[in-house]
C-alpha cells in the first residue's frame, strides 16, 4: 500500500471496504439461511445459482430492485427516504476501522474503539427516523422499542468494551488485539458474554427482536418500506452482524493471533468473526423472543452489574500484573 500515491491509496482502501461491506453480509445471510434451515430439519434454498442455492441472496437483491419503491402519502418524505441510509452507513464506517490484521485495515484510527461504538449508536437513528416518518402506529411503536432497547443495552456494551480497553491499556483496536493473551478468554469472559448479549440486542436480533416482533407490530419501523429501501434495512442488519462479530473477534478472541499470523492473520480474524456470527444465528434459531419488560430487566438487573463487576475485576488484574 505504501508505494501508491495518497489519493489512489484512499480509493483502493475505500473500494476494498465497500467490497467487504457488500460481500460479508451476504455471506452471513447465506450462512443464516443454511444453518437455520438445517437446525430446523430443512434444506434451505437449493435452486438459486445451482449449487445449494448459493446465489439466493443475489436473487433476493434482484427481486428487491425490481419492486416498486412506495412512499406512503402521509409519510414525511425526506426522513422516510433517508432513513435506510442512516441505518446502513454507520456500519460501513465501523467496518472501515475494524482491523483484520495490523496491516489489513481500512483506516487505522487511534481511538478506533470509541469511533466504532459511537458510530454503531448512530444506526438506531435510522430506525427512529423510519418509524416516525412512516406515519404508521406500528412503525412508531417499533421505533420507540428500538430506541428504548438501544438506551438500555448501550451502557453494558460500553462498560464491557471499556474493560477490555482497560486491560490492554489502549483505545485502538489494533493495540487491544495485539495485547490480547489466551488467558484473557477466562479473565474477560463475563465481559465477553455481556458484550455478545448487548450486541444482539443492539442489532435487534432474536431473542431481542422486540422492535420488529412481526406477530405484534407487523415489522416495526420497517412496516411501510418496500423494494430497495427495505433491502437496505435488511443489509444493515446483516452488516451489523458482521461488524459486531468482527469486533467480538478482535476484542475478545485475539483477532489475528494464530498460526502464521504474519501472513494469515486476516484469515484468522475472519474465521473467528464468522464463528461468532454462526453463534448469533444459532441463538436466533434456538430462543424465543423476549418480552419488553424481560428485555429491560435483563439489561439493567443483570448486564450492567455484570459489566461493572468485570470492570472492577479487570482493574484489579491490571493493577496486580503491572
Amino acid at each position: 500500500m505504501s508505494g501508491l500515491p495518497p489519493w489512489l491509496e484512499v480509493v483502493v482502501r475505500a473500494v476494498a471496504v465497500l467490497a467487504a461491506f457488500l460481500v460479508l453480509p451476504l455471506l452471513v445471510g447465506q450462512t443464516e439461511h443454511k444453518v437455520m434451515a438445517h437446525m430446523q430439519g430443512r434444506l434451505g434454498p437449493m435452486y438459486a445459482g445451482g449449487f445449494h442455492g448459493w446465489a439466493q441472496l443475489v436473487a433476493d437483491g434482484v427481486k428487491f430492485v425490481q419492486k416498486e419503491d412506495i412512499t406512503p402519502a402521509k409519510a414525511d418524505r425526506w426522513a422516510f427516504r433517508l432513513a435506510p441510509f442512516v441505518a446502513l452507513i454507520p456500519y460501513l464506517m465501523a467496518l472501515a476501522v475494524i482491523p483484520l490484521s495490523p496491516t489489513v485495515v481500512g483506516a487505522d484510527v487511534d481511538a478506533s474503539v470509541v469511533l466504532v461504538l459511537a458510530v454503531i449508536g448512530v444506526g438506531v437513528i435510522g430506525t427512529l427516523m423510519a418509524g416516525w416518518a412512516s406515519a404508521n402506529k406500528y412503525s412508531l411503536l417499533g421505533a420507540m422499542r428500538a430506541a428504548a432497547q438501544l438506551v438500555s443495552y448501550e451502557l453494558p456494551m460500553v462498560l464491557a468494551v471499556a474493560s477490555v480497553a482497560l486491560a490492554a491499556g489502549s483505545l485502538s483496536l489494533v493495540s487491544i488485539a495485539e495485547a490480547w493473551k489466551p488467558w484473557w478468554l477466562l479473565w474477560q469472559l463475563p465481559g465477553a458474554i455481556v458484550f455478545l448479549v448487548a450486541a444482539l440486542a443492539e442489532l435487534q436480533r432474536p431473542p431481542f427482536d422486540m422492535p420488529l416482533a412481526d406477530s405484534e407490530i407487523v415489522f416495526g419501523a420497517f412496516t411501510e418500506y418496500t423494494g430497495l429501501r427495505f433491502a437496505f434495512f435488511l443489509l444493515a442488519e446483516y452488516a451489523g452482524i458482521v461488524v459486531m462479530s468482527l469486533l467480538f473477534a478482535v476484542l475478545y478472541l485475539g483477532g489475528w493471533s494464530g498460526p502464521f499470523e504474519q501472513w494469515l492473520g486476516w484469515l484468522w480474524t475472519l474465521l473467528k468473526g464468522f464463528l461468532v456470527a454462526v453463534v448469533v444465528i444459532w441463538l436466533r434459531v434456538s430462543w424465543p423472543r423476549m418480552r419488553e419488560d424481560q428485555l429491560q430487566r435483563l439489561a439493567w438487573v443483570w448486564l450492567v452489574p455484570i459489566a461493572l463487576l468485570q470492570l472492577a475485576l479487570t482493574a484489579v488484574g491490571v493493577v496486580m500484573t503491572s
Partner: protein
Amino acid sequence: MGDGILPGLVKGLATTAKSLTRHTHTAEYPDVSPALPPRSRGVIALTEENCTSCMLCARECPDWCIYIDSHKEELPPTTPGGRARQRNVLDRFAIDFSLCMYCGICIEVCPFDALHWSPEFEYAELDIRDLLHEKDRLGAWMATVPAPPALDPGSADPAEVTAAAKPPRAAGAAGGTRGAGAAVRPTRVRKEATPAPAGTTTPPTTDATRSTTDSTPSTATAPSTETAPTATPRPATPAAEQTRVMPAVERTAAFPVVEQPPVTPPADGAEAEQAADQAAAHGDSTQVLPTVSTDSAAPTERTDEEGRE
C-alpha cells in the same frame, strides 16, 4: 429471571445443534420422486378390455364422477345353428377427478378387475374442467399399476386357484387334472355351447331373435343411439328385472362362449361350465345391462329387451 430459564435455554441450543447434524426431513419432490407406500391411491386406472360396462362402479360412486356409455353388439353364433349373442361395447369411460374423492369404492366393487389404483399422482391441471379423463388416459395409467401384494404366508389359496384345483365335472373325461384348465377349456366350452340351441325351449330363442332385430349390428361406435329411439316404448317396470339378471358370474361366462381369446377373463373351467349352464338357462343374461349414461342422449339409449312389447 426465573430459575428454570437457563437450563431451558441450554436445552434449546442443544436441540437445534443436534438437528443441525442430522438429516433433513425435506422431500426434494420435483427432483427426487417420493417413495410412495404400496397401495398408494394416486389415480384410478382402467383396463378397458375387462370392463363390461356393468355400471356397478358408476352406481356405487358416492359422488357420481364416473361416466359410462356403451352399446350392444351382436355376435354371430360360433357354431352352425348356434344362437347369436350380444355383448356390451364400451364407448366411453370417464372419471372426473375434480369430483373423485379417492374412496376406492369403484375399484372394490368392480367384479372384473377393470379398475385399479395407480400410485401416479402428477396429473394436476390448471383448469378444473381438464380433470375429466377419458378411457384412453385412464388406460394409459394401467402401466403404472403395481403388481398386487403377495399373499401372507400360510394364507388360504385365492378363490380362482381353489376353483381351478377342483376336479372337473364327471362328464368331462378329457384331462381333468388340476392345472390343465387352459388346454381343456375350449373343448369343454364348445361342448357347453352346443346344447344351448339344442335345448330349444321357446323363451330364449324368441329373446335372441328379438334382440337381433333391434340391437345394432356389430359396428362398434355409431348407431346404437340411432336405432334405439325407433324401438323405445319406454316400459314402466323393467327395472326390477334388470337388477335380477345382473349376477356377475353369468356374464363372465358369456365371453368364453363367444370365443374371444384376449378378452376371456381368468375364469377357470369349472366356473365357466357352471356359468355357461346358467347362461343357457337364462338365455338373455347379456342383453339386460342398462346403458345408463349421464349425457343428455342417455335416456334414448336405454334399450331393454324384456320390458319391451
